Every structure is written in C-alpha cells, then in structure tokens.
C-alpha cells in the first residue's frame, strides 16, 4: 500500500474529527433529557447492547451522559482557547511594535503567569470569580496565551525587518496600515495553528479543574464531573464510569493535537514537502 501524503492524511483527520464533533453536538441537541433520566432498576449495569458504556450509580445511561458532557467540554475548551489566542495576538503584536518598555512589561507578565503552576492559578481565578463556568473560562483563557504570544512577538519582530515593510514605510504608509496589510496576513497561519494546538490543553485543563470540584456545577454532565463521581465507586469494582468517559476525552484530544501538528507542518514552507 502506498503511504498517503501529509495533505491527504490531514484532510482525512479533519474529516474524522469533524464527524466526531458533529456527533457530540447532535447528541447534545437532539437526545432528550429523559434518555439520561435516573432509574434505579438499571443502576450499576456493566456495558451491554442496551447501554454500550454501562450505567452509573443512579442508573443513568453513561453513553448519553458522555456525549452531552463532551459537547459541554468542547464548547468550554473552544471558547477559552479562542479568547486565549486573541489575547496572544494582541499581546504579541503590542510587544513587537510598541516601545521597549512595553516589550519589557510583556515579558515580565509572561514570566509572572508562567511562574505560578497553571492548576493553582486556575483554582485562584476560579475562586475569585465565585467558582462556576465563568471562573473556569476566565482561568483557562488567562493562563494559556503565553507561549503563543512569545511566538507571535518573534514573528512580528522578524517581519518588521523585511524590505517590503521598509519600502511601504518610505512610501508614507502609516504604522496601522502596514500592520493591517503587511503584518497581520502573515500571522494568520500562526494564529490558526496556535488556536488548534491550544484547544487540547484547554480541554484537558477544563476536565482537570472540573474534576477537582471547581468549574461546572455537579448537575452538568461535564467529563471531569462524571470522572470525579466515578472515583467513589472505583473500589467497588465499577470500572466503566471511569474508563469510557476518559477514553473518549483522550481520543478527541489526541485527534485535535495531531491535526494541529499536521497543519503546522503543511503551513510551514520548510516542512510542507517532506
């Protein structure tokens, strides 16, 4: 069998991921709440044809809960990583184009954010905003922009030294015009790749922090919450509420991560033809 080239593999990967995400969204919208209603007769059933992922301690179908939970987790992850990527672009461009003290300030702030372990910082921010979804989103968005901002700062620095930017300046174009017409278009690939690669980190942190009991309220079927519930029944030998939700999360994170990596290689002219 001939190996498919990277472009085809990336398209296939994106299609697979798109189908999975569509399935989660459809499940969240179409499956009625009653499908995951508690029924004590069905409680603690191992996986079977009627319940492919088994049922939890209250008799709720785990497959339905996982599908709905993934939709919640994905929405939170997407929102947080989008905000984070926008912050990264703003900060990175400001650091590269502003005066020296702006650059110094930005690098100091980045050191500061990187200096506190992310989990601790998210706990602190979530505490400040009274826990809940808002705190979780703010915490993840506030901690994930640093490395992308550094990357974008370096990129803009390099672009500003190019000849066409100098020519444009001598033609009398303003700084803002150069930024919009010459610098930002070059940042689009970095931004897209950065966004896709931020996403897995954001979902993993969301699940972790929900698992610790911050973030989403217990009645929301987020993956972290299902997993933290499953902790209570582990020693009773109930393995399915712990294994299946986590494995679904890992699958999605792995696919997104590989997609981001392939995109990075395709968009970079040095490795595009490998």
């Amino acid at each position: 069998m001939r190996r498919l080239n990277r472009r085809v593999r990336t398209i296939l990967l994106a299609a697979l991921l798109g189908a999975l995400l569509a399935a989660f969204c459809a499940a969240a919208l179409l499956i009625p709440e009653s499908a995951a209603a508690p029924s004590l007769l069905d409680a603690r059933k191992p996986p079977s044809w009627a319940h492919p992922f088994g049922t939890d301690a209250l008799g709720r179908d785990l497959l339905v809960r996982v599908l709905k939970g993934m939709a919640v987790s994905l929405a939170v992850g997407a929102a947080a990583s989008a905000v984070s990527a926008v912050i990264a672009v703003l900060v990175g461009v400001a650091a590269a184009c502003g005066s020296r003290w702006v650059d110094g300030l930005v690098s100091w702030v980045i050191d500061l954010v990187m200096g506190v372990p992310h989990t601790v910082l998210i706990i602190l921010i979530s505490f400040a905003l009274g826990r809940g979804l808002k705190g979780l989103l703010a915490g993840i968005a506030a901690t994930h922009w640093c490395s992308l901002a550094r990357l974008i700062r370096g990129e803009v620095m390099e672009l500003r030294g190019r000849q066409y930017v100098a020519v444009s300046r001598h033609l009398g174009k303003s700084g803002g015009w150069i930024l919009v017409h010459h610098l930002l278009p070059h940042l689009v690939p970095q931004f897209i790749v950065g966004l896709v690669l931020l996403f897995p980190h954001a979902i993993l942190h969301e699940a972790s922090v929900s698992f610790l009991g911050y973030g989403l309220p217990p009645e929301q079927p987020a993956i972290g919450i299902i997993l933290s519930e499953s902790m209570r029944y582990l020693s009773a030998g109930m393995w399915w509420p712990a294994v299946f939700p986590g494995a679904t999360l890992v699958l999605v994170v792995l696919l997104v991560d590989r997609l981001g990596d392939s995109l990075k290689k395709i968009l970079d002219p040095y490795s595009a033809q490998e």
Partner: protein
Amino acid sequence: MGRALGRLARRFFSYSVRIVTLLLAVSVISFALVTVSPIDPVQQYILGLGTAVSPEQRAEIEDYWGVDQPPAKRYLSWLGELLHGNLGQSALYRRPVADVIAERFVNSLALMLCAWVLAGVIGFALGCVMGVCHGRWPDRLLKGLCYLLSSVPTFWLGLVLLLVFAVALGWFPVGFSSPIGVRGEDVSLWQRLYHLALPALTLSLMSFASIALHTRQKLIGVLSSEYVLFARARGEGAWTILRRHGLRSILLPALTLQFASFAELFGGSVLAENVFSYPGLGSAVAAAGLNSDVPLLLGITLFSALFVCVGNLIANLLYGVVDPRIGTVEP
C-alpha cells in the same frame, strides 16, 4: 576561573532580584483575586468552627480579619506578618499555615522528586532509543506512545492505574501516604515508598513525553552532523558514537529542560495527589479553594511560585554553565 565565578555570581544576583519582584507581584495579584471573590471567608470560617456564633463573637472575628479596613491596608498588614514568617491560621486544618505547608511539602517533595527522577531517566533513555532508531519501527512506536501520553489527563491516568494495580490486581494500596491505623512515627520507609509508588508513576508518565521528544530531536540533529558521519567512516559503532558524540551534547540541555518543568510538575501533583488522597500540598490547595481557606490558599500559591522560580533559576544558571556563548552575554 575567577572571572567565570564572578559572572555566575552576578547572574545569580540579577535572577534573585527578578525572583523577589515576581514573588511580590504574585502576592499582590493573588491577594487582589482573593479580595474580589464574592465568597465570604468569614462566613466560611464560622461554618468551619461548627458551633453557633453570637453577633459579638462574629464582630470580633471580623475585626481580627480586618473586614472593614481598605484592601490595601489589609494587604500591607498581611505582607508585614508574612515577612515575619507568620502566614496566618488555616481555617481548614486549625493550625498555622506555615506548619501545614512545611509538613505537606515534605510529602509532596518526596512524590515530586521520585516522579522527576523517574521521568528524567525514562524520558532520556527512550529519547536516545528514538534518536538512534530514527524512522524505524521502535522510533514510530515510541513516538506514538509519547503523543498518546501527552494527550492523557493526569487524573484519568491515575484513575486507570488505580483501577488496574490497586483494585483489580491488588498490588498497591488505594491511597494515602501511610497505612491506616498506624501512628505517624511508626511508619517505615518501605511503607512510605510502597504508598508513593502509584502516584509517582502517574506523575512521571505524565511528564516524560516532553523530555523524550526533546532528546529525540536533539539526537537526530547530532547524528546527522558531519562529525558523526566522519566517526562512522572511521568505523565507530552506534553505541560508541552515542557515548562519544551524542550524550555529551544532549545530556545537559535535557537536564536544563527538566529543571524548567517544575511548574508542570507541581500542577500535575495537584491532580495526582487528589486522585490518590495523598496528603501533600496539591491536595491541600484544592481543599483550601473548595473550603474558602484564604490564608492557606494564599500561602500555597506563593510557595508554589517560589518553587517554580527556584527551578527556573537553576535552569538558567545551568544554561550559562553549559553554553559558554550565553554566559558571555549579559542577561
């Protein structure tokens, strides 16, 4: 030699100044975050007492906490006490915060040190294997494993290990740092290590992927260089080349990377400790946030920042020692 030492001392000094300013900023920001929180710590403190509190007693507690004072004044008095080594009283554990941190940090340090060493050794060894076998099946297999492990959430890996090794096989205990029903001073070193094994394994599996992939990348670079081609032409075998040319140039950068990863290590330990009910700093900070134990939350935040800074300081100093080109440029 004297000049090199002087340079090292100057770098050490400038980083120390940076650490102090960073820690001050962390203290200001974390204090501000706790202050804007809608959660009332006095109410939580009173709930934690477990007894009814008269309005006079409540007023006394509020007075002690300085509720009606402006935040800036409260911050300054907190900072003043902090500089005298008084971090306040933990509402959750009913003990001084400094004592709680000191006791739990010993546990966390044991856990993180085991995981750190294990991750470094495994990661470096696997990175070397991947680099030497670049493009062949061991490389592909191990690379896939690294990608997989970096997509797995720490706490879920902990859950799975717990299921397999503690519940199904029964080889390891389910949690805690010592057997239940044994007094603290009677616990033997062996029992502690036995309870440490699963959390440490979880934490090290989480962090070895980055070091392995970094080592692989570096080693591939070294092995495709011309001096390695020349060594091969002289008839040196793969192992000799790795020992003479590879290890020397990749070992210290890998070590530097390991020291710079203290933040992820601490973040991972928060999750691993919660899964295994391990009494370290990580489970304390999660409990402090959930129970609104403000002094403990602030104390651990500052302490974790200090821990990360020390790691970065060592990494930066090592970098200067390893790479003389960096040492000559003033930071």
